[in-house]
């Protein structure tokens, strides 16, 4: 009954001899078994990082943002670097779940659940930075347009910083809804096979009482499709708006029209790297290599080499336009990036983002798990430096007397480490209690893309075309 026929030349997306029931067993196994020692150790490390992060932030709130090494002219430092970095990482999840859904890319089904979880956790981490950067964090709700007694005095709706508030919160909400609506049927699967009372109850609540009615599935498909359609422009808009934080200012090196596309490409680039970092480990530890295959890893590496090259072109374009503009301050800003006090950050960025991903043109390296893992770390470091380089453009402004150099203080580093703690604590909990692969979606592609089903296609491939058509017509 599958109208879609996929050539056997295409690599299977589900390896091994799988049935619908076997898929359920495989994906539910890590949830239903006791956590491994590795999981417990990883979780404890993450939780302690988170605790240190909370301590660092508490310190900052108690003493004020003065404990951070921010100064005139560098008012953004580590904090906003980390914000942009984390938001960017989030973008891969939405790209996989939404844009690849619209493009009908079958391989997304193996990785979309984990990638989208990563999006949500990354956006949660990102949101922390601007909030605590406000200093008087108890007044953070001032950014919301609520009827107050001061007029009412409204926030400035034409400020990119306020657009960010709307963009990030919308992005978080929509990603969460998209992710959770996909999780409902899988929670129902877990609920109906639960052996313990507690699991039956909690997955019962989490599954919203889903039973799998045909009409409900029809609406579910429609919901996924429209949410994908909404998320696609949304994900592009979010990093565009983040880039507006820089591009609409009149700071040399920031005031450029190339920023929106260049930020979006960089976001997808770093996001896919983070997906690789997580999934290369997840598939091994949870024994899911048959669902997240080398083919999946290769597909993502192709995205990395594409977006890495786009980012590389953007860097070179920036340099050329700075030279070609003839604007003295613009030229000086870029000269300082390449050869100024922060030259090391610029060249770290160039090496990690532009040069090293080019190795992915070799098929052997694209399909090598260890190399992929190593590269994913390199790309994440590179993309962090990209944001650092951009923000450090502030170290020289128009007034030489205020030129400065910036190094972070311990609460800033602690805050950054704490965001890793938050991210990985959430991810470890997700990997233990949630199905890391979309069970229902994998079942849906099994008969077109499963290895055992593809092998059966040999007979059809060899059959006479006319005869095949004849037979199909009679069958229906």
């Amino acid at each position: 009954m599958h109208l879609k026929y996929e050539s056997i030349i295409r690599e299977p997306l589900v390896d091994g001899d799988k049935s619908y029931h076997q898929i359920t067993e495989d994906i539910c196994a890590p949830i239903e078994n006791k956590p491994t020692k590795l999981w417990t150790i990883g979780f404890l490390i993450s939780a302690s990082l988170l605790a240190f992060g909370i301590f660092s932030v508490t310190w900052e709130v108690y003493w004020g943002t003065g404990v951070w090494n921010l100064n005139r002219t560098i008012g953004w430092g580590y904090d906003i670097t980390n914000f942009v970095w984390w938001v960017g990482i989030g973008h891969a999840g939405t790209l996989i779940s939404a844009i690849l859904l619209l493009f009908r890319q079958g391989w997304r089904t193996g990785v979309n659940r984990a990638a989208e979880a990563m999006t949500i956790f990354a956006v949660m981490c990102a949101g922390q930075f601007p909030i605590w950067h406000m200093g008087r964090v108890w007044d953070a709700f001032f950014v919301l347009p609520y009827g107050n007694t001061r007029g009412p005095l409204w926030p400035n709706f034409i400020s990119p910083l306020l657009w960010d508030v709307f963009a990030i919160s919308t992005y978080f909400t929509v990603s969460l809804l998209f992710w959770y609506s996909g999780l409902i049927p899988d929670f129902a699967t877990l609920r109906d096979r639960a052996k313990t009372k507690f699991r039956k109850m909690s997955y019962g609540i989490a599954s919203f009482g889903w039973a799998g009615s045909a009409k409900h599935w029809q609406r579910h498909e429609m919901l996924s499709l429209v949410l994908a359609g909404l998320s696609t422009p949304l994900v592009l808009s979010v990093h565009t708006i983040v880039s507006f934080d820089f591009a609409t200012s009149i700071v040399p090196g920031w005031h450029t029209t190339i920023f929106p596309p260049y930020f979006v490409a960089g976001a997808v680039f770093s996001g896919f790297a983070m997906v690789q970092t997580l999934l290369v480990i997840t598939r091994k530890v949870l024994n899911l290599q048959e669902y997240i295959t080398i083919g999946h890893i290769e597909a993502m590496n192709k995205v990395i080499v594409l977006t890495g090259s786009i980012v590389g072109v953007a860097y070179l374009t920036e340099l050329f336009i700075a030279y070609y503009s003839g604007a003295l301050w613009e030229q000086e800003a870029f000269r300082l990036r390449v050869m100024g006090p922060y030259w090391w950050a610029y060249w770290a960025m160039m090496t990690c983002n532009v040069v090293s991903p080019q190795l992915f043109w070799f098929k052997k390296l694209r399909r090598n798990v260890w190399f992929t893992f190593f590269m994913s770390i390199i790309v994440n470091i590179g993309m962090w430096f990209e944001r650092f380089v951009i923000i450090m453009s502030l170290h020289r402004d128009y007034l030489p007397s205020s030129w400065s150099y910036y190094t972070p203080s311990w609460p800033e580093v602690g805050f950054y480490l704490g965001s890793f703690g938050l991210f990985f604590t959430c991810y470890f909990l997700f990997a233990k209690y949630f199905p890391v692969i979309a069970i229902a979606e994998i079942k849906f592609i099994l008969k077109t893309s499963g290895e055992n089903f593809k092998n059966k296609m040999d007979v059809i491939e060899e059959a006479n075309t006319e005869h095949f058509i004849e037979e199909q017509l009679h069958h229906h």
Partner: protein
Amino acid sequence: MSIKKFAVAVYDDEAVLFPAVKKVRGAGYKIHDVFTPFAVHGLDEALGEKESDLHIAGFIYGITGTCTALGFMGWIFTTDWPQNFGGKPNFPLPAFIPITFELTVLFAAVGMVLTFCYLNQIMPGVKKHIFDPRQTDDKFVMVIEVNDQNASETEAFLKATGAEATNIQVAESDWWFGRFDKKEDYEIQQQLA
């Protein structure tokens, strides 16, 4: 909310389910529902369901978001608290676009998910009768409402359509507030019978 009697047929594969649906409908039975572990494409059509209108609801919510954002910001900037930002117009449409877009998406997404939950009558704390515990795993379950007279006849017919297993169940046809780790009265009775 009512407790009814159902003939339940469990199928092993969607390739068996489709001809069975055709036969059952052809014989004039009214199918109460079919439960599947994943979205089986074409099943809604085979069951004679019309296409979902959820996307239209989504469009209406989206437009509401657009109007809310533009109306609210426009009212503030032109009427409630007009300010002069560097001599720019009081209604700077291009600068309103980001927030307008975000609110459009937000309204559409939240509205659609709530509508989805309302139409399907699903919510945390809601319980529904699960005819076969493997209907969310690998089995395809067709359910037909029966009465005392035609129960065994219907069950036999379903068996003949290629069902792996059939049975008669007395079950609540609607949802109720309940927990999945607790048995309801009628479920206990059913087990005793």
